[in-house]
């Protein structure tokens, strides 16, 4: 229903394109719409784990989005969850983004998918979250 799918071709090798969409210093050069800047964030898709970014537009409005990097497989794909925060910093519905990169005769192609999680994925993710929290807790108690 709310699936977003787009592709874009670039005349650079897949490895370089992967660096452009995963490394913090590169992400900051293109993250978000024109006119937005990212004064605050942890935008690193080279590793799994939490990420977030706060974007500010020309009017000083803040937009915060956060999630979890779920997989990183250079140079072919990476994925992360996505949730906007409201003005009270409450995180909204979670969706999932993947960047897939494939070599083409002239360089490489980026395929971007942004889709909503269905209920089973949501609950599975929550269970995973709880499982890892419990593992950490168990480690502390050892």
């Amino acid at each position, binding site marked *: 229903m*709310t699936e*977003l799918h787009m592709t874009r071709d670039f005349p650079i090798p897949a490895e370089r394109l992967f660096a452009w*969409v995963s490394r913090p210093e590169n992400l900051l*050069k293109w993250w*978000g*719409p*024109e006119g937005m800047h990212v004064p605050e964030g942890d935008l690193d898709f080279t590793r799994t784990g939490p990420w977030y970014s706060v974007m500010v537009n020309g009017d000083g409005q803040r937009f915060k989005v956060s999630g979890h990097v779920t997989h990183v497989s250079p140079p072919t794909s990476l994925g992360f969850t996505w949730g906007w925060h*409201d003005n009270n910093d409450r995180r*909204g519905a979670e969706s999932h983004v993947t960047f897939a990169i494939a070599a083409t005769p002239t360089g490489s192609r980026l395929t971007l998918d942004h889709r909503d999680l269905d209920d089973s994925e949501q609950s599975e993710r929550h269970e995973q979250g709880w499982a890892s929290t419990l593992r950490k807790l168990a480690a502390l108690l050892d």
Partner: protein
Amino acid sequence: MTALIKSFAALSDETRLSILEQLMQQGELPAGALAQGRGITAPAISRHLKVLREAGLVRQRAVGTKRYYSPNGDGLRLIADWTISRRTFWETGLDRLEAAIQKDEGWLK
């Protein structure tokens, strides 16, 4: 966000989705015209319209005892903004990515 969930919940029903589609295509209609061709009773159609109204997707206008229904632009815009904003975010982001790669990698289109 709650408003969006309400909208989608209201539209997750074949009859209600088709009612809204008809109103979007034909403009304001009385409840009777909406019941026609659907093979459902007047009370059933008014229940559906009530759900659509409460979700902010349909407006009601009373003329005497007659009720007229039309699409509620505000509710529809909410859905449009929500779907477009995701597309806009990535589309403009990819434009910037392309520009940044052109600049840094010395590639001219």
